[in-house]
């Protein structure tokens, strides 16, 4: 098959699967946040439970005028939302949703993920810079500072996983988790105990420090509360989004939630066993894998939403303190501990 045709089909498939998931997460955020606040949230759009609210919002945004401030850097301003959306969508390429279902199984999958996930911050910085708005500028610069502070813990958390799994390919990491045996013990007193170890096989338990670091860092990366300083609507009105309207705002909005889904998918893949589930054979996984992965993604997304609607926002300097004084040392210790563990057992 033509390479380009294949690529097009794969990109189309990734979009067709992941954008609805992002819409579901948007709807989930609307509903969950509402019920956490004794409200009902969307109710009328689409009939039952207001399920069509995200679509209706999208349609509404499409009708709005695409405003560009007079002083804005026109081209950069218009390009920024595409970069944000591209940065998040490009992540879907390497996430395996089944033993054979992955758009592109890169040997350096983890490396690719880390590199591409910081691309969207560039878009944010561009948006903040080009808007010709002081609030946007502060928001964009905060996003850049946040990226620098949080890319490092993210990488450190992932390195420990890579060390544990012995591979940088996401598919191999999933396989390593599926076939992982705690302390290498397969039998005790002649009895087969692999079922015990398979239950706790995902790195979630062994790499609990890494998981926490990864989740905190990805919250900062996604600029969600408690790390939403680049947006900070009570300080910077809407940060780098202040001047955006219409379709371009929709792209940022979608990019935010697509980013949430992709970050959750990566966390699920790296720490929670991805598409695999203890006790489910590989043949079944080709069908059930996407569902298993999706449920793990939804769980992580729920945790993100839960945090978002419980906590206030930190200050920029406090965020830096957390990153440099707590997460990075913890990540380094985690790597050392993982390495010792790996060598010892």
């Amino acid at each position, binding site marked *: 098959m033509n390479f380009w045709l294949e690529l097009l089909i794969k990109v189309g498939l990734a979009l067709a699967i992941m954008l609805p998931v992002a819409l579901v997460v948007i709807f989930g955020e609307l509903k*969950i946040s*509402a*019920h*956490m*606040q*004794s*409200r*009902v949230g969307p*109710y009328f759009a689409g009939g039952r439970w207001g399920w069509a609210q995200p679509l209706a919002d999208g349609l509404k945004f499409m009708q709005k005028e695409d405003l560009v401030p007079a002083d804005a850097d026109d081209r950069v301003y218009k390009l920024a939302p595409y970069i944000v959306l591209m940065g998040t969508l490009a992540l879907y390429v390497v996430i395996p949703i089944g033993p054979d279902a992955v758009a592109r199984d890169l040997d350096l999958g983890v490396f690719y993920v880390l590199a591409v996930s910081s691309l969207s911050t560039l878009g944010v910085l561009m948006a903040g810079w080009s808007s010709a708005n002081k609030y946007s500028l502060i928001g964009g610069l905060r996003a850049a500072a946040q990226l620098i502070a949080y890319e490092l813990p993210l990488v450190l958390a992932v390195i420990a996983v890579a060390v544990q799994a012995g591979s940088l390919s996401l598919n191999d990491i999933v396989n390593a988790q599926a076939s992982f045996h705690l302390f290498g013990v397969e039998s005790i007193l002649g009895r087969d105990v692999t079922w015990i170890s398979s239950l706790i096989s995902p790195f979630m338990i062994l790499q609990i420090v890494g998981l926490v670091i990864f989740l905190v860092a990805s919250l900062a990366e996604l600029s969600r509360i408690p790390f939403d300083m680049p947006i900070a609507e009570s300080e910077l009105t809407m940060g780098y989004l202040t001047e955006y309207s219409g379709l371009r705002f929709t792209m940022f909005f979608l990019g935010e939630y697509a980013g949430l889904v992709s970050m959750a998918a990566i966390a699920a893949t790296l720490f929670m066993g991805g598409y695999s589930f203890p006790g489910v054979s590989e043949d079944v996984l080709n069908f059930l894998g996407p569902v298993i992965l999706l449920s793990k993604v939804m769980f992580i997304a729920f945790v993100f939403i*839960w*945090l978002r*609607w*419980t*906590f206030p926002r930190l200050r920029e300097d406090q965020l830096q303190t957390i990153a440099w004084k707590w997460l990075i040392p913890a990540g380094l210790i985690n790597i050392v501990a993982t390495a010792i563990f790996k060598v010892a057992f």
Partner: protein
Amino acid sequence: MTGRKMPTLPFKGLRTGMWLTLKTLFKKPVTVHYPLEKETPVPRARGVIALDTEACTVCMLCARECPDWCIYIEGHKEEQPPAKEGGRVRTRATLDRFDIDYALCMYCGICVEVCPFDALFWSPDFEYSELGISEMMHDKDRLTYWLSTVPDPPKLESN
């Protein structure tokens, strides 16, 4: 200070907060779906002013006492036949126009309070929004209609 508690375990505040939001997630929301279901306003609620044209004597007290002068009244004197044959011809004030500009009204209720003949009442009805600000001027027919929505005054606490 009562509020500044030292946490015993790390992030106690974060955990109690998250527990509270999780609990609320499974509670019944308090929202009232307005067009489908309605709350009953309390009897004293100042929703809209109703007019009893029979009781009005065009004394203009309400229009004069209104803090932003949003009541417009016009009337004329009508001669009525004497009660008895050969008696004096009586005049009776008749209401021609009684408009309240609800775009201007600030719902203080002074007009209801000063009316010496009990012609004005508060009705808790609140559903009379209009699309244009000029349509908020309601004439006496509309005000009379609201008379049917005036509730009985509530029973009182023992004094």
